[in-house]
């Protein structure tokens, strides 16, 4: 089946070449970071995690969200998702790969990466995050491949693959739960120290992940005549709507607890994010942009007329992805460090090398996604012609 990735139009090859170019630029920039140290990033003593770890967090959500196609199909026999689950699984593969690379580029001593395995430390959540992420990667590679393989051979899905699929459903929940635990178990980081961090992560993931997938499907419909049943689009957009409502609801719950309890530590981060504090307000325009984009997308999604109109739906999905990405892929990780434990305000902004390296990682993910989807489409096309 692999050969299907090697047959494509000029546009396909141009796209692949562009991604390879980005990967190359990202790689050389990484070599620069590797030789100079993480000082080339915007990270600091006070804000010691930034753009890389934030992307990891966001992409774990994207990876987990594949379950929103798998679960309705395999547990509720929602038939219109039948041809789409494979996309969820392949998107998970690509997203988990990016997650792992974002951890790698964030390490100060990447050569010693294997110490995590050589000296396994179950009391560290990072150990478990590595465990669940690599497990999820393996599950989705095997499942995705076998689903495609059986389609290719026009055969039934073997029983053991179905068992793996059932395992992958709670496993998807676990990867984002464990990723939330990275943060929510740390004393003294008030923004993160909340029991609803895992549910918040899942809600935003189940809104943003399927939104990204739907957008990709629309692109594929245009570029590759990919057939997306309207019913599937409807169901997915309803899932996205509910998940986004929950996401916003959870965020408001956090604010209620912070402001009604009036406990300074709990208020500080929100204050810094939305109005600025101690003359520092770098995050303020972003946060309000996130709010406006989020509200805009919710209005478009909640009104059935607009949700069902492909044009307004696309606008809703794009703004939803932007809104959740600002909140989770920029603010949540960074603002957890502001103010620092000594109540001092050090701000953070990613540097150019940091952004270029991140773009390189995203390009790797997109390339993997492109190749996998190409193979899937190739297999489908052959089956249709047969």
């Amino acid at each position, binding site marked *: 089946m692999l050969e299907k990735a090697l047959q494509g139009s000029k546009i396909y090859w141009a796209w692949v070449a562009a991604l390879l170019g980005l990967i190359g630029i990202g790689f050389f920039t990484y070599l620069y970071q590797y030789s*100079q140290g993480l000082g080339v990033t915007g990270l600091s003593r006070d804000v010691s*995690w930034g753009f890389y770890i934030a992307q990891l967090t966001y992409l774990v959500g994207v990876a987990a969200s594949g379950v929103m196609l798998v679960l309705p199909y395999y547990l509720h026999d929602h038939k219109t998702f039948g041809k789409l689950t494979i996309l969820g699984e392949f998107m998970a593969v690509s997203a988990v790969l990016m997650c792992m690379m974002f951890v790698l580029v964030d390490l100060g001593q990447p050569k010693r990466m294997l110490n*995590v395995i050589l000296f396994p430390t179950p009391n560290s959540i990072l150990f478990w995050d*590595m465990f669940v992420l690599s497990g999820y990667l393996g599950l989705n590679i095997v499942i995705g491949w076998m689903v495609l393989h059986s389609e290719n051979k026009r055969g039934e899905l073997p029983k053991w693959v179905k068992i793996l699929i059932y395992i992958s459903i709670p496993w998807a929940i676990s990867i984002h739960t464990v990723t939330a635990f990275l943060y929510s178990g740390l004393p003294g980081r008030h923004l993160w120290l909340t029991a609803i961090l895992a549910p918040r992560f899942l809600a935003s993931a189940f809104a943003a992940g399927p939104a990204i997938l739907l957008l990709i499907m629309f692109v594929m419909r245009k570029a590759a005549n990919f057939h997306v049943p309207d019913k599937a689009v409807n169901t997915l957009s309803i899932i996205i709507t509910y998940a986004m409502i929950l996401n916003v609801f959870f965020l408001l719950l956090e604010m209620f607890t912070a402001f009604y309890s009036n406990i300074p530590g709990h208020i500080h981060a929100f204050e810094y994010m939305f109005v600025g504090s101690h003359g520092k307000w770098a995050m303020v325009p972003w946060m309000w942009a996130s709010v406006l984009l989020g509200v805009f997308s919710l209005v478009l999604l909640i009104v059935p007329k607009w949700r069902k109109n492909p044009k307004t739906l696309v606008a809703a999905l794009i703004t939803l992805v932007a809104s959740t990405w600002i909140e989770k892929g920029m603010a949540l990780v960074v603002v957890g460090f502001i103010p620092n*434990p*000594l109540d001092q305000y050090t701000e953070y902004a990613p540097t150019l090398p940091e952004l270029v390296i991140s773009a390189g990682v995203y390009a790797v993910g997109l390339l993997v996604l492109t190749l996998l989807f190409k193979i899937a489409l190739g297999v489908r096309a052959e089956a249709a012609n047969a």
Partner: protein
Amino acid sequence: MDSARRNFLKIAGLAAAGLTLKPAGNALGMGVIVPEPEGAAGFDNALSAKRWAMVVDTRKFTAQARKAAVAACNKAHNVPDIKNSKHAIKWLWEANFKNAFPEMAGPHVPPQVEREPMLVLCNHCDSPPCVRVCPTKATFKRADGIVVMDFHRCIGCRYCMAACPYGSRSFNYVDPRQHLGQTNVDFPTRTKGVVEKCNFCAERLARGQKPACVEACRNNELIFGDLADPNSSVNQALRQNFTLVRKPELGTQPQVYYII
């Protein structure tokens, strides 16, 4: 204790277990625990304790004593002098009361307390979150309570920095050796990409010396000793004075006490 010595002891322990035909589990190395000498032994005159702790007597401190303590620490541990505050390495440093004890700051703190900075450092917590989160055991708590770093095992993930509620950990964002004046050959310099922090001068204790900062303070501004020994100077100071620890509500059980 260096790893060669530790490995030698392990092998010796295994051999001994084998020779005396200990139960199979032991012979396989499953239950063989090599007793670590108290403290970081290696020298006959090593200082050892069951639980090292420090008392900072902020009343006694002068600006001069604080500077002397910080300078002694930086010199003893090859702490680089990095001008960019974002990349700074700090083991022992000065902080204002409102920063060291943000929960207690307010409009009615005595001016003396508000004005005079105090020394802050790693609290060598009894329940250290940094140790809990480290994915490689590169940071660990010794039997005598000191929380130390293995600079050679650290992968630089900085999870410990997120976990430490005292901001006591620093990361080498740049090559620290470029920012060293004179190098102290008795303590390793570090490479870029690893985390570091105060180690209660574990290497000096092993040589029978008190921590550098304690030694630099001539007026008992810093008191260092064994909490398990009722007659130790720290216990005396704790009995005679009301002391604070930083952020006790977090359950980390800091072992650096402040007399305000």
